[in-house]
């Protein structure tokens, strides 16, 4: 009996020490909170939208829908963090640029194209915006990897300049695309009741999983993040690997931008994806990843992203005014970060362990 209890408490300790435990626990606590105070939170209804297509709606759908961009960005941010030991704070501005490029390529000089008047296909526009976003990522990457500027300082440049560059790309006009098909990426594809961003996010996760499985990106970024000298002496090129992570983040930015712009079928340079960089960094931190680089757990970051979205949605649900939202969020974030701190977790693991162990002996 005592042996069994011991192994149980050991198991508990093991689980608590797992990196992915904190974001999952946070997710469950938030869900539990909603379950207790308003089980209606979990209601999902199948309705019809204005075009008469079936759509799912409900708070949980909102979470996985609105959390898509953040989850996608968390992927890139995790790699950047792992390899460079720093964060990219320009992703919000970069989304504005990528979105602006997307619209510019689609609309050309005509800022109000009617359906069918688009200059080119969505695919071409998306590819161009990917290239531009990756180029800006590469720019950040060069500053960080070759010139050894601290990532936050290096990306501060684009953070400051990005939104005006985005406005400049479209001559400060705000193009609106009336073609309903453009709205599919951020909304619903007729006949499919699940929001499209969810599929895009899942696709990104699958790609990330495949990349981690079939390449050495994970091993290389971690090795470089932990010990650059050793990595170099083992034949790696730390400069290139750090640079590469910024380019990958650029790609994630382009995908997120597509969703963001499609949601509105337009763009607002100063507001689009505002402060999303901080949420993306937070997602990485909530996932228990060291912001100083090195070992990472991508899935923990992604869950972290959904935790943030769940928190936002929950707060909205309880009619917290959007101005006050950050303050509430901050309180929860402080709690989460404190609990995910290694010292606290170590204590927690012991705390639960020792009484159980004592009981077992008695």
């Amino acid at each position: 009996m005592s042996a069994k209890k011991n192994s149980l408490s050991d198991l508990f300790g093991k689980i608590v020490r797992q990196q992915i435990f904190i974001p999952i626990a946070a997710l469950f606590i938030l869900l539990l909170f909603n379950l207790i105070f308003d089980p209606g939170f979990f209601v999902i209804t199948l309705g019809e939208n204005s075009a008469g297509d079936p759509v799912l709606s409900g708070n949980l759908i909102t979470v996985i829908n609105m959390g898509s961009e953040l989850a996608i960005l968390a992927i890139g941010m995790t790699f950047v963090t792992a390899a460079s030991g720093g964060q990219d704070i320009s992703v919000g501005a970069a989304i504005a640029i990528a979105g602006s490029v997307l619209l510019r390529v689609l609309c050309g000089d005509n800022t109000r194209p009617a359906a069918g008047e688009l200059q080119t296909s969505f695919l071409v526009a998306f590819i161009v915006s990917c290239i531009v976003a990756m180029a800006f990522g590469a720019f950040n990457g060069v500053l960080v990897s070759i010139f050894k500027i601290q990532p936050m300082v290096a990306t501060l440049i684009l953070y400051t300049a990005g939104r005006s560059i985005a406005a400049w790309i479209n001559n400060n006009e705000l193009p609106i695309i009336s073609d309903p098909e453009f709205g599919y990426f951020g909304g619903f594809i007729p006949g499919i009741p699940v929001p499209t961003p969810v599929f895009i996010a899942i696709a990104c996760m699958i790609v990330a999983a495949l990349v981690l499985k079939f390449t050495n990106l994970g091993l290389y970024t971690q090795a470089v993040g932990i010990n650059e000298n050793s990595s170099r002496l083992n034949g790696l090129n730390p400069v290139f690997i750090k640079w590469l992570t910024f380019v990958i983040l650029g790609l994630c930015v382009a995908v997120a931008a597509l969703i963001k712009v499609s949601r509105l079928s337009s763009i607002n340079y100063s507001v689009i994806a505002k402060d999303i960089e901080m949420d993306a960094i937070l997602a990485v931190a909530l996932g228990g990843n060291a912001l100083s680089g090195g070992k990472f757990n991508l899935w923990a970051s992604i869950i972290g992203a959904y935790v943030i979205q769940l928190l936002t949605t929950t707060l909205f649900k309880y009619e917290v005014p959007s101005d006050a939202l950050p303050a509430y969020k901050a309180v929860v974030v402080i709690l989460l970060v404190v609990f995910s701190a290694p010292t606290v977790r170590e204590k927690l693991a012991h705390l639960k362990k020792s009484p159980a162990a004592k009981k077992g002996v008695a």
Partner: protein
Amino acid sequence: MSEGALLELRGIYKSFPGVKALQNVDFNLRKGEIHALMGENGAGKSTLIKVLTGVYTKDEGDITLDGQSVNIRSPQDAQHMGISTVYQEITLCPNLSVAENIYIGRSDNVIQNWKEMFSGAEKMLKALDIPAEATAQLASCSIAVQQMVAIARAVDMDCKVLILDEPTSSLDDQEVQKLFKLMRDLKERGVGIIFVTHFLDQVYEVCDKITVLRDGKLVGEYPIKELPRVELVSKMLGKELDDMSEIKTHDVVKDDDDSVPVIYEAEGLSSTEGIKPFDFHIKKGEVNGFVGLLGSGRSECVRAIFGADRVLSGTVKKNGKIVKIQKPIDAMKNGIAYLPEDRKVDGIIGELSVKDNIILALQVMKGFFKPLSKSEAEAFAAEYIDMLKIKTASADTPIKSLSGGNQQKCIVARWLLTHPEYLILDEPTRGIDVGTKVDIQKLVLKLAEEGMSITFISSETDEMLRTCSRLIVMRDRKVVGELKGEDLTQSKIMSTIAGGEVQS
């Protein structure tokens, strides 16, 4: 309590999950005694010291200091009681002045009297005969002086017990002598010194007593005169040791034997690290080495061979063909492997698992798009953990939680896994326990017998003499001689390093 006893530890127990680190350990230190604490890595030396300095709390046992039973709960406690520690890594602030480092964090006053501080520091440096200016920035002093400043700081805090944890591993001989002089001065003043080191020579030079630990248990306490070296080593290992003499029985590949092909050849090689262009070659199955004082350029030479520093000039031939080696990956692709001198800075990837550390080099050679499968990686790791007898809880344990010797074995495993033709080992035995040292030397000779060419560098000349059949002597970043055959003696090496008349 016996006369003159300063510190007594009785029946100390300490365990960690799954490990009994200390079991019923006793330790005695008298006033004015230099006491060596010896044992292999993992024998419990570090744990004992950490118990003594309050980093860990003991599970059981009594500590008596100056006749009073004490309970040390934190490093601050230990410091207040007069137990000071100087670690292998300097734990001072390099960007502050020497004086600031001595006084930092010790005054409760808000206002610091700088004049007094500097003059106080100046006085102390003089009293302890430390060659440093109180106003100099610490980083501008040599490592040895920094170490001495750390000791000065400890001494000034009225320390009764001074613990020196591997203070000499990054010092050269002269610096070690200076440190020893300081230790003897302190001994005269009645300070009890606990000295932890892997260098047997140093133990016999400066210590009065030796306490040996093995597997967390006390083996015994011996006056230095009653314990010859061989016995000390066998006590540390727990077996009679003929191993050392067994080494060096293999058929030495003669450098002049023309039937043996040259594996690697360099002409006029130089790098950004300021070594004079040098020529070098190694034959199949040969073990050679670079000797010279610390800073003579021996590491820089092998780093140039591996492309670890930027190569400035020279032609390199591998198996007779001219190849370009500019970066480590070039060398690796040419079958050259390099175990770097500084394990922590250049070798291990601390947070990664033993497994990932072992497969890293092979993985990099295979390429970005060809990761080893999980089962392959696990099989490789298991094979080498078994072959090199790496002590680790599992292949997934982070390498940084292993002892130094086992970390080093992992790095050796990493390179063996790439099946190199030419293996460079730069100080593979530094800071690791005697048992592993012997293992590594044996391994070198075994690999050479199997046809691998090896360059071996060690600060301990007897290790070099035991393993190498040809030695390249370095002085002031220049190759000054080459010794082989009957010239391979300690005195010949010394005279070549010092005078260097022998030109080859």
